[in-house]
């Protein structure tokens, strides 16, 4: 029951967290910034509107974003927020979740291709390229996790035992894993320095360019999806990083929330202090991410047992 409540609150709060990020960016830019509830207003506004469909598109365009959203929602069900048992769990769910997200990505990509626009194709191509690199890095992270737990379940990694947590003294390479996870987060959620969700220069965008033709409620769903996806990755990272206070300690939840918000803030800071990479630099960045994860795994396998 606790888990369900936590899950629902997090989902509801996801747009808020993203708004925090925007606030941070505004702060760095020396602006007052938008209201914290801006994302909710946007969503309501969008849902009230109607949509314009391109005549080039087929039904895929109209269902793609829903499937993507469904995959993200389902993935979130597997996360043991603040160490509480998740709603769903089985051995192997980490792979399932990753592939489920790929399913979402598949539909995002083909929805983009459906418009027949060269811009959106461009975005799709880049997304496909970068995400396969990011995924490999993620698998490297899983390998290092498996080393501790010999299971393939997110719940098992982060739930009861304290093994996979940065605050565990013995696991010194885990911060490295944390860093690579953070980099993966940036990639998968199209944040700076990989992608700049705020630019409106189509040629440089990756994710945003793919949704150019969506409008109205459809766009609202897509926004929700992007909030939730960010939530997923941030929570995953949080689970690795947040300080724990023993089993069933009520401070756990507070600690979780604080860490989560810290992660959003750090994303915001990163976005503010860094510029977008040149596109051909991105693969290099991802390879570095992958190498970092591999390095961490090697150290873990070599020393941490």
């Amino acid at each position, binding site marked *: 029951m606790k888990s369900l409540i936590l899950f629902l609150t997090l989902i509801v709060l996801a747009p808020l967290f993203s708004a925090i990020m925007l606030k941070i960016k505004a702060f760095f830019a020396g602006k007052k910034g938008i209201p914290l509830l801006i994302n909710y207003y946007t969503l309501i506004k969008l849902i009230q509107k109607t949509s314009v469909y391109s005549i080039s598109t087929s039904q895929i365009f109209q269902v793609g974003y829903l499937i993507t959203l469904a995959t993200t929602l389902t993935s979130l069900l597997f996360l043991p927020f603040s160490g509480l048992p998740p709603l769903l769990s089985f051995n192997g769910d980490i792979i399932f979740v990753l592939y489920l997200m790929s399913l979402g990505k598949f539909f995002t990509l083909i929805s983009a291709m459906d418009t027949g626009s060269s811009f959106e194709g461009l975005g799709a191509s880049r997304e496909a390229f970068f995400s396969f690199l990011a995924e490999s890095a993620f698998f490297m992270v899983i*390998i290092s996790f498996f080393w501790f737990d010999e299971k393939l379940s997110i719940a098992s990694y982060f739930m009861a035992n304290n093994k996979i947590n940065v605050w565990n003294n013995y696991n010194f390479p885990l911060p490295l894993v944390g860093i690579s996870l953070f980099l993966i987060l940036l990639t998968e959620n199209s944040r700076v320095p990989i992608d700049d969700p705020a630019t409106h220069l189509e040629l440089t965008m990756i994710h945003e360019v793919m949704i150019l033709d969506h409008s109205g409620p459809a766009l609202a769903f897509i926004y929700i999806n992007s909030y939730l996806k960010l939530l997923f990755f941030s929570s995953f990272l949080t689970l690795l990083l947040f300080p724990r206070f023993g089993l069933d300690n009520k401070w756990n939840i507070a600690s979780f929330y604080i860490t989560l918000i810290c992660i959003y803030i750090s994303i915001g800071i990163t976005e503010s202090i860094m510029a977008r990479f040149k596109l051909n630099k991105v693969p290099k960045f991802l390879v570095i991410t992958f190498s970092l994860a591999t390095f961490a795994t090697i150290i873990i396998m070599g020393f941490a047992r």
Partner: protein
Amino acid sequence: MGIFKLTIFIILIGGLIPFATYKNFSLMKILSVLFISLGSLMGVIDSLFKLNNKEIYNVTYKLSDIFIVALSINNLTKFFMIIIYLISFFSVIYSFHYLNDSSKALRTALSYFLYSLLIISMIFVVSANNIITFIFSWEVMSLTSYFLVIYNYEDFETIKSGYIYLIFTHIGAMFIYSAFGIMFAYTNSLNFINLSLIPLNIKTLIFILSFIGFASKAGLFPLHIWLPYAHPAAPSHISAIMSGVMIKMGIYGILKIYTMLEFNSIITGYTVLAFGVISGVLGVVYALGQSDLKKLLAYHSVENIGIIITGIGIGMIGQYEKNFAMALFGFTGAILHTLNHSIFKSLLFFGAGSVIHNTKNRSIEQMGGLLKNMKVSGLTFLVGSLAITGLPMFNGFISELIIYFGSFQGLKQLPLTQFASIIAIISLAVVGGLALACFTKVIGVAFLGEPRNDNTSNAKESGIFMLIPMIGLSLICLTIGVFPKYFIKIALYGTETLFLNSIDFHINDYFNFSTSITNISLLFFLILTILFTLKYFCYKTKKIHNTSTWSCGFSKPTTRMQYTDFSYAFSIIKFYKPFVLFKSDYKKIDKIFPNKIEYHLEYLDIAEKYIIQNIAKFLDLFFEKLRWIQHGNIHIYIGYILIVLIILLLLI
């Protein structure tokens, strides 16, 4: 056994009838399709029912002293028989509307005959219990498939492809011959008997030889290069059979030899794994570079065979390391993936055939927007794509997941195995990601967007008999993906034969995720339904506008401005540069007022470019140099005799 014979008999009748009735084109097709599909269906059901049955059937017919037909049907055999019959069933139905050129009546009749022979020979391959039966049916299989490939022999490319296929199949056969020869040398028996007592180095030799032989059939890198030639050249239902079933015979062979040898050698395990990994990754990279739809699918066969072989490699290592879970997951995953691949790959070839049939070209660069006119083909192709990419809810995911499990188990072992496991895991991940890129490309460029030429925009949906198999296979993909438990069980029956010292285990100990997957998939569909309802309410009262695609203020976009498959894949392929060669053809602008400039870029396969072509070139040159032997001068001819004589006399 009775039904086994009856099935074969019915299929054979289905193959022979066309010769009697080819004057009446549709009657011929109806009868032939009816018989073959009936026989195949019987075969599927029969094998499925018998899977539970532990006893092994053995039959021997003695034709002559040497030629003894010996059959033995165990669970692995039955599993492969399910694959053969299942795909054969759908494929022959598909052919009913696919082969619709009545001016080629005789050829079509012959094609049905060869088709039935191919099916029967494959059944014999998997049930053969002695060397002679095996290689006989193996060669018949190669030969009939060759003739089926060159159905469109008017086309020069087809003939060339057939030639390449023929050479490779012959090379493979020769390797298999030699493996069997060594086997015979040590057992003195033409029967497939247990070989566990022969020396280890000989075992390794036998395994390596047969591995090369079977790998050339299975299409493992670098012996895969016939695949991207033969599959596009063949009619689509034949490509489906070849890619879906025939190349699996290579997998069967590897498993068969492995079982017979009771083989324990870590090096071969690693080697097999390495080949699997290389094929998997390079297969998909090359696939990404293709714009010929069937060639692309052919390279995906290389990829999937790579995955299967990876699974087998994991299984072998597991068995060597006495890690039961690893072995179990590796082999089960490989076997299940064999089934899965045969299903979704035939589905994709059917889809490709349907598209190519209606748009009259094979390059996806000329297609676009096909989903609007060809709803069923498009959607089933989408299902196939999702399955081959290994995405959840579809069958490909299940087997890949099991192989992942196996690979992760390896992390518990010694450092070298750990390393191998890491390689396997990462390559599976990479393969998954690249496959996603590849199939979003295909779906996006071929089926979505705007049609790129008139043929494509006027394409009509194919006939009903082409659609039925596609729908059927899509449903099977989905069923396996959502209810994997039963199919894992079937695969486990197949694996049974592989566990040489089998341990009784509970399926739930290892495969308890299968029920979870079912539940979660159902939940996913529930969520999806809820979202659809939400969407429905959002749009309920609103009027939706239609306009052309937003192109950033540019007001007259044309279809030529669409993103092409080449540009889609380019950056990813460039990432793999040393393993993919680029061949560009570009004339520089040399005048003040330049004419039309063309830029042509092609991706080349390193196996073909570096290995095969160089060998061929070397042989050509070498033998060219020797041709002076036959120079026509009689004096020197007699000189040869004298020289030979003198040399020999000096040597005694």
